[in-house]
């Protein structure tokens, strides 16, 4: 399997503190993410989605197989990836203002201070939070906090954006808004997104392809191409026959 911006090749992972006779969290997962695409990973709870994402982010080292970015095996945290986690309350830093949260990853890029300020305010404007620079994250609503996390990731201009169930803790209306936001920044920046979710609807709605994981230990149960036309629309796309059919197919694959 070659040619993707991201290639996950025979990935296996066993937690160091797991029981010796327990199966590994991930067993031989392979898929690739072409540059510029949005690929969703779905799987039942506990199937190893977060573990997979942590391997790709370089936070933990795979115990088998290889992950390549631009054809080079990753060794440690790659330079060009950004993350958005589900738990915005814990991944934004409460002692920093909104602007400082967005700025933190930019500090090590060697940018001029003026450039950093522009990037921060542009990113906040892009997610609809212009003027919140001096606020603290905990003064914002949950949906706004997750927008800050998305702004932080976009200001970093990653080649690969990793998202782990980013919208699982917000209510339905906010989730729809954030899905639209994700699609619009993805398209505006031509970035590549690996989107982990257990929400089949969300995966099919957002993605070019859906990688379906089996229950633990994770294997790729199916790799489904989503041919739905873009731009997608919360109401029209979701009520189309093709969407309903795809969603049912993925649901059957997961349940199997």
């Amino acid at each position, binding site marked *: 399997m070659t040619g993707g911006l991201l290639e996950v090749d025979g990935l296996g992972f066993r937690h160091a503190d797991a029981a010796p006779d327990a199966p590994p969290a991930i067993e031989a997962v392979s898929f690739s993410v072409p540059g510029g695409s949005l690929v969703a990973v779905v799987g039942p709870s506990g199937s190893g989605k977060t573990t997979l994402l*942590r391997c790709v982010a370089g*936070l933990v080292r795979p115990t088998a197989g290889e992950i390549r970015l631009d054809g080079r095996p990753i060794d440690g945290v790659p330079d060009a990836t950004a*993350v958005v986690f589900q738990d915005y309350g814990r991944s934004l830093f409460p*002692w920093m203002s909104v602007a400082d949260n967005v700025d*933190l990853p930019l500090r090590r890029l060697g940018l001029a201070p003026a450039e950093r300020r522009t990037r921060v305010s542009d990113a906040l404007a892009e997610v609809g939070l212009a003027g919140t620079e001096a606020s*603290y994250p*905990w003064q914002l609503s949950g949906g706004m906090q997750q927008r800050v996390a998305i702004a932080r990731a976009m200001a970093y201009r990653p080649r690969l954006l*990793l998202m782990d169930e980013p919208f699982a803790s917000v209510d339905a209306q906010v989730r729809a808004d954030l899905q639209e936001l994700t699609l619009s920044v993805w398209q505006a920046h031509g970035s590549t997104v690996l989107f982990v979710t257990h929400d089949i609807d969300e995966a099919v709605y957002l993605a070019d392809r859906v990688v379906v994981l089996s229950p633990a230990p994770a294997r790729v149960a199916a790799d489904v191409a989503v041919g739905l036309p873009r731009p997608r629309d919360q109401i029209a796309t979701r009520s189309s026959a093709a969407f309903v059919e795809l969603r049912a197919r993925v649901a059957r694959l997961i349940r199997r």
Partner: protein
Amino acid sequence: MSLALGATDAPGRVGRGLIGVAAFIGLAEVVTRAGIVNPAYLPPASSVLGTTGRLLVDPAFLVHVAGTLAAWAMGLAAAAAIAIPIGLLLGSSRRVRDASAAAVELLRPIPSVALIPLAILLLGRGLDMRVALVAYASAWPILFNTIYGVRELDPLAIDTARAFGLGRSEVIRRIALPSAAPFIYTGLRVAASIALILAVSVELIAGGAPGIGTWMLANSGAGVPRELLYAGIVVSGLLGLAINGLMVAGERRLFAWAPRLRSRL
């Protein structure tokens, strides 16, 4: 914005507190004036307050206050300088924590005042001895709160910073230390009160150099007006109140972001 509630509420609380204090003083006054308690044991509150007021502008007395505050400040600073780094180390390494647990459990129950005679033997009756004892007693809350603060570190916060490419030292400086800081400060706040208790206790027992305790010891004999002793007690109480008030105000200012302190309504 999050402090608005506390701010509007504060005058009311302070007002009620003052009323309570005034009532207490009034009661003490009545009790002695009415002859219910022998004034030789408890002088009238008004004359204790008058004496306190005079003492607070008396340079000879203020030298003693300065002596106590010097031991307090130096002891607290020494405690922080020792306990914070050790706490960071113990908090971040399970192995070091396990290895030191027995020693800590052995030392901690020793009442600090029990060390006074030994400290006098080793260090004399001067400032060194006082600072050493104050530091010993106030190091414990700083140590335990620092360990706790480090252990409370959120792994997801660390992962987020690491995933954005922050190196180990940056993660420590920008994430680990700021998030442990409110806990460390709580340790300092508790230690500040303990340090004052220790400073005065040591003076009361060891005497020697100027200090409120030394002064009280000198004014506790027969023939000395009792007002003086009571005024000394009032002054130490006021010092404790001021120190705690300043530490709490500092906490609100510095750590308004800490979940424990922010009241979000």
